[in-house]
């Protein structure tokens, strides 16, 4: 009986769907953007996990990957791009710079963490993180969306 009938609520089915159809936003800041491109490249191919439709406009995207150092000049623009994204929206902070300032934290023009500007769901460590780490972060985000831990 349990093999043939799938019992679920509409809410759960919706959450599962949301997690598996994330549209990331083509938005590169610095070094980590190159590793982000590697993650979408042929070797790591993160289209396997249902997040392959990179969109160039924030209005089409659900997932913003902040890949690189956030400077004081760029921070207002990041906030503006985040505001332009439609709900539901998620943010991955990729690498040491975006998470906490990284090696540039002592600089006068660097924001120590993108979480000062936009709410962050997942942090990825590394300078830069390997594509595997980014894929792991994506999987974690999908799991937490499906289990209802992340809500927007």
């Amino acid at each position: 009986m349990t093999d043939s009938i799938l019992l679920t609520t509409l809410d759960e089915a919706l959450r599962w769907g949301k997690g598996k159809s994330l549209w990331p936003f083509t938005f590169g800041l610095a070094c980590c953007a190159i590793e982000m491109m590697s993650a979408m490249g042929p070797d790591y191919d993160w289209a396997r996990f249902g997040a392959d439709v990179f969109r160039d406009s924030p209005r089409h995207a659900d997932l913003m990957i902040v890949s690189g150092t956030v400077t004081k000049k760029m921070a207002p623009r990041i906030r503006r791009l985040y505001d332009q994204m439609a709900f539901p929206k998620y943010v991955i902070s990729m690498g040491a710079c975006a998470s906490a300032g990284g090696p540039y934290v002592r600089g006068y023009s660097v924001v120590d963490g993108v979480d000062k500007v936009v709410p962050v769901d997942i942090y990825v460590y590394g300078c830069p993180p390997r594509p595997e780490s980014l894929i792991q972060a994506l999987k974690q985000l999908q799991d937490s969306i499906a289990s209802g831990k992340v809500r927007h």
Partner: protein
Amino acid sequence: MEKVVEVNFGPQHPSTHGVLRIKVKLDGEIIVDAQPVIGYLHRNAEKLSEMGLYPKALIYMDRLDYVAALNMELGYILSVEKLMDVETPERAQWIRMMMVELNRIASHLVWLGTHGLDMGMLTPFFYCWRERERVLRIFDEITGSRLLYNYFAIGGVYSDVTPKGLEMIKEFVNTFPDRLEEIQSIFQKSYIYAKRTKGVGKLSLEDAIGYGVTGPLLRASGLKWDLRKNQPYLFYDKVNFEVPVYSNGDVYSRFLVRIEEMRQSVRIVKQVLEKLPDGEFYNKKYAKPMLVRMKGNGESYVPTESPKGEFGVYVIGDGSTIPYRVRIRSPSFANLQAVSIMLKGYKIADLTATVSSIDPVFGEVDR
């Protein structure tokens, strides 16, 4: 009645190669004026380098031009070695040359892939990345890192090349030229690509020299100027290679120059593999405990040919263990200035082709 419209291109745009913003003034669809606005990735690499010991500044050099990190390290290390009169063993210098040339290939492949994306071609991106990942696997094997290596050290390199690494390099240089041919034919067989790039974004030789443009852009404008030939450093005078020169100065010539440079890099790596001598890979006098006691006095500048153009670090030492001044001469910064003349008079649709042909990397433009 004529009306000039001002359009902002960037700082977030898929084909700005980072965070470039260009203020474009348009008359219809003709570009009247274009002013680049930079500084969105200014992270004070120069000042932070002056806050630590000499070897510590290396991590900021890595992060200047992050697609060709080893080339950036080389510029700094050569300058510091000249400042401190450090002897480097021969094997270390050959290893450096080989790694730098491999990184030049990786950098040009990133350019080629993203240039394809800007021109509306998705396939070359995957082909280029497939080849680039092979180079990165070699770096992963030898240096232990994929993108930013921290591999060169004052007086040598941090680790010797492994036999497995050498095998991987041999396999790569033997198969890469054919694959490159394949990628090149995708571009050259495309009628649309030729239409969008031939005669677009022209830069005359006079303007190029006037603006301090170097690297592939200068060579595409018709001057045979390559620091590896004109002012040899490392052992570039002991290997044979050609310097590709084209005289049209348009986007298509820059494409041809970069493709040919990759072939020449393969040639250099092949020769290094034959000539690689045995011996030490670093100077024993400058082993790790010594690094914190290194003192520099005076000033030095060694220009090197990075994939983007002339790169050099001007270091002033005041006799202490911390550099007094680190001034970075970054090629993309100078090359990007010329964008306003390259764009003037062309159509707005040519903007992405021209900007991507400069190959700016914002880590080094803004520093």
